[in-house]
């Protein structure tokens, strides 16, 4: 059984069927790139994995633990909260918390998660907060933003903001980190720095799913590539297979188009 198992995910909004039976597996440490034209359901898939949408049918499991199964009774809010911690999500539009410093953006969620609603002695609490602080600083240095720790998001460039968002998502050590077009809101000259950070995370053995329109990045960094079209997986394989020798006509024409206007 693969580390991440996704089986038969269906999702409709009203009458529009967006996902029509998505199934795939991923091994630990793998990087999966998802490509596909606009409206094919890539964002919806990531949102299902992160429990922002509830699939109509299908199941999701990580490391043998079933996190979602449309056949079993629906989980409570607090169960969902624990389950979604297996996944992290970096949004296209960053969604940083504007009122907090960069450092606080990263440390807020772990602080709430590890200290709220728990009976802790003063010493334990301050030890935990210390650890979180050290870890947050370390993550910011990983994404190259040690100098901006005390800045506010509005004082940063888009690329820097997205790197903060990546550090923030990493702070909860998710099993699988998802990126939804992490560079599409950025000017071309800023995409490089964000892609570099993602590429560096790969060497540290993290499991990642990256929805992207950056074909070179998908080709160079991903272990597996999924091409989605109209809510189904049209093609799945290694980058060489999908980019070098696409089996499906749809994949071929999509790749041709994205080469014309990258």
């Amino acid at each position: 059984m693969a580390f991440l198992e996704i089986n038969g995910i269906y999702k409709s909004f009203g009458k529009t069927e967006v996902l029509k039976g998505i199934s795939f597996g991923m091994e630990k440490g793998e990087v999966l790139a998802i490509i596909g034209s606009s409206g094919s359901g890539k964002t919806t898939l990531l949102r299902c994995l992160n429990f922002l949408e509830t699939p109509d049918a299908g199941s999701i499991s990580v490391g043998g633990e079933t996190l979602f199964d449309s056949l079993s009774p629906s989980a409570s809010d607090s169960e969902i909260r624990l389950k979604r911690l297996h996944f992290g999500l970096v949004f296209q539009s960053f969604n940083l918390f504007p009122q907090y410093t960069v450092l606080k953006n990263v440390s807020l969620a772990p602080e709430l998660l590890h200290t709220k609603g728990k009976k802790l002695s003063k010493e334990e609490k301050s030890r935990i907060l210390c650890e979180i602080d050290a870890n947050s600083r370390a993550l910011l240095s990983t994404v190259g933003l040690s100098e901006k720790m005390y800045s506010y998001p509005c004082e940063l460039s888009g690329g820097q903001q997205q790197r903060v968002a990546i550090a923030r998502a990493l702070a909860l050590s998710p099993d699988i980190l998802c990126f939804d077009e992490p560079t599409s809101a950025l000017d071309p000259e800023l995409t490089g720095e964000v892609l570099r950070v993602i590429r560096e995370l790969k060497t540290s053995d993290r499991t990642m799913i990256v929805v992207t329109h950056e074909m070179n990045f998908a080709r160079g960094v991903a272990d597996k590539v999924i091409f989605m079209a109209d809510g189904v997986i049209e093609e799945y394989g290694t980058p060489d297979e999908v980019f070098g020798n696409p089996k499906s006509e749809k994949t071929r024409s999509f790749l041709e188009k994205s080469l014309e206007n990258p």
Partner: protein
Amino acid sequence: MSFLEVTLQLADGFMTTLLIFAITLVGAIPLGLLITLGSMSKVPPVKWIFKTFVWIIRGTPLMLQIILVFYGPGLLFGAKALPRLIAVIIAFIINYACYFSEIYRGGIESIPKGQYEAGQVLGMTKTQIFFKVVLFQVIKRIVPPMGNEIITLVKDPSLARVLSVIELVQAAETIVSLKSLIWPLFYVGAFYLLFSGLLTLLLNYAEKKLNYYQG
């Protein structure tokens, strides 16, 4: 009449104005929050009841509402009339709570969905998202419109005269008509300017404090 005598006579009126101002503020700020919760309710009937209520209150003159609160209970249910000042204050609190509730609602709805989703994805509870992520941003956004309402609230207590409650303007008018003096009117005007001027400074200060980030 000397300056001192006029001042003493106006002092009562001023206290009444100040009282209406302060109690309305203290009452309407939390009541407005309740109305916001009602008008944003996911249960349609609750939502529509609150929305209709807000529409009625905002769509009719405050003066009419004051009169209704005073005479209504007696004429409709044979109840004993409320003391006049209390009736005025009740009408004020309800009226201002409705305006505040719309400002709160606007503030809450102006927070992008992505803020909630970012909190959710980071494993926060709904309460944590509201208090740690959303609330501060809402406060920052509502301070300017709330400031407008609060400045209006400085001047609105003059409506209390419709129930012959002696507030500042009524007190001044009495002097003007009885003693044929005009300057007490300017005196009262200066009073209002000072009062709203101080509030403006305070509100500007709060706005500036909250402006340490953009957005």
